[in-house]
């Protein structure tokens, strides 16, 4: 019997607009009857710049992930000067980590930022090294040495501190060793002895590619925990490349082919494919965050003709990094920071906040229509910090608590709420306690506020709390306690699917998710931040701007998919104390310290490909 497909062909959706949200499926065809185009979504891979190392270096050891990375030791120049310096990356900044007990470069390294292992390499006085060290996030501890001292181990390590793998080395070393957390044991040799290759994966499923024999090699071998098997070669032979992933899904980048490269290849378990997404900087002797994945890792430092300190981050996503951008929006009439926000990119509401003058605040509220801001009626009270996040809409807005009073400046903390109906503000129900500088999300009839500070006087009597209150449009009830007593976090989502992220005291990168009754910890946002904007939903959320104690005002935007954070387009100007509204695909950032009037509009365009017949 013939099938529908055999008689009619594949079904193609006939739509008046492009698919969006969770209907997006890579490779699924649909016809847009408005534009007259047959379309599909495509995956996009891209590199974008990260922070610079504090100390530029080549031949450092890489470990960790894009948001919790390590660069260990290396050569800081000018003529092969080895260092003990280690730096930790949080996705935004580098900070100094513990120092190696001895200066080294070209070590085999792997593991995570808080459980890394680094072995062998080269160090003064100009000799091969066998010593190995583990790192616990603060200091290095010497562990048993490799059985075979060797150098040229740049990126030749894989695995963890309790199941590590080291192979190869200079000159043409074939020896393979496994570490089980207490000692190194000899294993079957590589088929081709190579130094300065790239080892990816685990002790029982590793992939070792490239390197030098001493001639530059394209060879690729797979390890199953017992022996090495030849695989298909890299398309471009090279040494000192950096990669991450697994034996069945790996990405490698850069290195030296004889000339310095920015070429990127991906492995699917069988063969290597060169992809168009090249690194922005050609470089060799780079340190990869090799606990990352084939679709998300970073490389730092290296040699690009001279020693460099820049970082590049690799991302593969349906929402391409390069297709997200902030554009300038209309300027607010009253510049402010720490205001309260509601609504969407084209129908936003901003109220209250700090204005110029010593501790001065405003009761002014404004509406945005996607082009310009117009004055709305004022809040009943002057207030600021009455919920960081997006609460409600432009025609059904909500502010809750904050620091304020009937005049400005005011030292009081508030328990009162106000509701906006698109024209004017009216009193809402009172919260069970005062709350200031707290996270907020939800709607006017299903609001959620959490953590922050409580007390009676913003200058003399405040206490950080973890309490949560839920609003039903008339009264507040207590919900489950937030994960930490903190303030200046921001919220997004709904009363039954809410998210809180960041915090001030202590500086926090924590993410917590609320299900309508209790909070659970999610993955941390890259780097600590406070006074940031947040908008969107639990599975399509966004955070932008804010303040990091090391970096100052942030331009960074990160998106949340309900599990992981990904970096997105930067704001044009760093700002903290800003307000946000809208969705992940169409967000709005407004104001910020010191009383900024400027706004920016975020658009994340999923990469649509129009199929043509020519």
């Amino acid at each position, binding site marked *: 019997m013939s099938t529908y497909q055999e008689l009619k062909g594949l079904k193609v959706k006939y739509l008046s607009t492009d698919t969006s949200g969770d209907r997006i499926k890579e490779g699924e065809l649909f016809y847009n009857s408005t534009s007259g185009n047959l379309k599909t979504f495509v995956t996009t891979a891209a590199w974008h710049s990260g922070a610079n190392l504090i100390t530029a270096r080549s031949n450092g050891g890489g470990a960790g992930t894009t948001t919790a990375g390590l660069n260990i030791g290396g050569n800081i120049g000018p003529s092969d000067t080895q260092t003990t310096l280690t730096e930790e990356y949080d996705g935004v900044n580098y900070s100094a980590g513990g120092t190696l007990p001895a200066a080294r470069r070209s070590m085999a390294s792997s593991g995570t930022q808080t459980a890394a292992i680094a072995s062998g390499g080269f160090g003064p006085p100009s000799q091969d090294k066998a010593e190995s060290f583990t790192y616990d996030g603060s200091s290095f501890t010497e562990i048993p040495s490799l059985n075979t001292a060797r150098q040229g181990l740049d990126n030749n390590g894989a695995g963890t501190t309790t199941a590590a793998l080291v192979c190869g080395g200079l000159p043409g070393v074939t020896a393979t060793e496994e570490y089980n957390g207490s000692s190194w044991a000899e294993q079957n040799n590589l088929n081709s002895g190579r130094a300065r290759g790239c080892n990816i994966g685990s002790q029982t499923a590793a992939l070792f590619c490239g390197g030098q024999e001493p001639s530059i090699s394209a060879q690729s071998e797979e390890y199953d925990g017992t022996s090495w098997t030849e695989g298909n070669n890299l398309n471009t032979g090279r040494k000192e490349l950096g990669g991450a992933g697994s034996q069945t899904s790996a990405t490698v980048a850069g290195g030296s082919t004889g000339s310095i490269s920015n070429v990127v290849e991906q492995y699917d378990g069988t063969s290597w494919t060169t992809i168009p997404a090249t690194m922005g900087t050609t470089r060799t002797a780079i340190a990869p965050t090799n606990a990352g994945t084939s679709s998300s890792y970073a490389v730092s430092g290296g040699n690009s003709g001279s020693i460099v300190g820049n970082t590049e981050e690799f991302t593969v996503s349906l929402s391409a990094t390069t*297709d997200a951008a902030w554009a*300038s929006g209309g300027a607010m009439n009253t510049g402010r920071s720490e205001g309260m926000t509601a609504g969407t990119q084209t129908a936003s509401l901003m109220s209250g906040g700090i204005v110029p003058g*010593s501790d001065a605040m405003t009761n002014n509220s404004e509406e945005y229509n996607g*082009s310009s801001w117009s004055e709305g009626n004022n809040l009943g009270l002057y207030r600021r910090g009455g919920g960081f996040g997006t609460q409600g809409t432009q025609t059904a807005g909500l502010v809750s608590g904050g620091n304020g009073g009937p005049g400005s400046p005011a030292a009081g903390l508030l328990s009162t709420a106000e509701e906006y109906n698109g024209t004017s503000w009216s009193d809402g129900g009172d919260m069970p306690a005062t709350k200031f500088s707290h996270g907020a999300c939800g709607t006017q009839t299903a609001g959620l506020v959490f953590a922050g500070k409580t007390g009676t006087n913003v200058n003399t009597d405040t206490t950080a709390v973890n309490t949560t209150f839920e609003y039903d449009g008339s009264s507040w009830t207590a919900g489950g306690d937030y994960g930490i007593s903190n303030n200046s976090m921001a919220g997004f989502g709904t009363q039954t699917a809410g998210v809180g992220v960041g915090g001030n005291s202590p500086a926090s990168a924590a993410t917590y998710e609320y299900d309508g009754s209790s909070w659970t910890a999610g993955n941390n946002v890259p780097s600590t931040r406070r006074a940031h904007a947040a908008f969107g939903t639990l599975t399509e959320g966004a955070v932008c701007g804010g303040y990091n104690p090391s970096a*100052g005002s942030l331009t960074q935007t990160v998106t949340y998919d309900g599990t992981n954070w990904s970096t997105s*387009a930067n704001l044009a100007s760093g700002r903290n104390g800003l307000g946000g509204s809208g969705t992940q695909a169409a967000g709005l950032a407004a104001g910020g310290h010191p009383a900024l009037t400027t706004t920016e509009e975020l658009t994340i365009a999923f990469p649509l490909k129009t199929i043509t017949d020519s």
Partner: protein
Amino acid sequence: MALFIYGTATNTGKGFFTHQDRLDFSLRGYTGHDGSNYVDVWCIGNNEKGAYWLAEKNGVEKTKSEAQTLVNAAVTLAQNAWDAESDEHKAQFDRPPAITIP
């Protein structure tokens, strides 16, 4: 070739820089002060589209040193204002940090 063009141009709001501009060239804004007024200082990716953008916005090109001086002046004003605040205010807000443009 230098990585950035530096200049001042007043952010006029909607349409001052577009999504396409942000995809075409790097753009990073800072608050500066010219001794009389606050000015918007921009570090613009040094390509043809970036250069045209600054010209189209009636911008005034600056050297990196001149741009840094404008930013430093604004930071100094902000730090002086912070220094004059009460201890309670200082306990709540950090002193504005120095900014080094790229």
